């Protein structure tokens, strides 16, 4: 912060020289991408043996989980952008992201057996 001020008054809002919020935002984006890959593989596995009821339910569940992760990432990214010094992530938020991952794996076990 102080380095930015010493270098001359910044025009926009004060920016972290280490770009920590941006890096965190990109980390959320990367993780969303990983979740997308996992969800696509899950949906493909659900619909492998033609369209069956269990396959359709499993595929739909995977889509819902993916949408849930997308919403979580979007909310966190908006929180990060809202303030120049964003606070720590809420534990509930982290737990929700982990629960989506675990649910995806449980979905996979259901589709396997």
């Amino acid at each position: 912060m102080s380095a930015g001020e010493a270098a001359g008054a910044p025009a926009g809002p004060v920016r972290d020289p280490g770009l920590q919020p941006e890096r965190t935002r990109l980390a959320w984006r990367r993780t969303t991408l990983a979740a997308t890959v996992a969800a696509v593989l899950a949906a493909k596995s659900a619909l492998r043996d033609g369209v069956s009821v269990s396959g359709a339910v499993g595929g739909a569940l995977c889509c819902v989980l993916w949408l849930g992760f997308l919403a979580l990432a979007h909310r966190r990214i908006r929180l990060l952008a809202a303030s120049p010094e964003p606070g720590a992530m809420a534990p509930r938020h982290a737990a929700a992201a982990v629960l989506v991952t675990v649910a995806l794996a449980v979905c996979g076990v259901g589709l396997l057996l």
Partner: protein
Amino acid sequence: MIEFVRNIRLWFAPEQVRREGGTPDYRFSLANERTFLAWLRTALALVGGGFAVDQFLPDLRWGWRVGLALALLAAGVLCALRAVNHWVRCERAMRRGEDLPVSRFPALLGVVVALVAVAMVFVVLVGWDT
């Protein structure tokens, strides 16, 4: 393990984490968050790997294929749960000004992934159902 169970309560109680110690520099919290996300990506990759084994190795014997897929899915679940647990522990340690918690998990995961890779080589050489 007992501490893990005790920490589960903290996952859903932000005010309880926030009550302890002082708020660390926000950059440390964000770095902790990125580490958590990196572990979550590892977990998602393991889960995706489980799905991939199931789909892209259809010629494998059923037992090998399902066993390997289940092992990868279970590793993904374990990795995800451990990620949030470690994140909470680091966050608390930073608030209290303690040392960051050390962990055996990365070494464990490395060994398991190596074993799965060796199993995979074995499976590819021996396990084909021809």
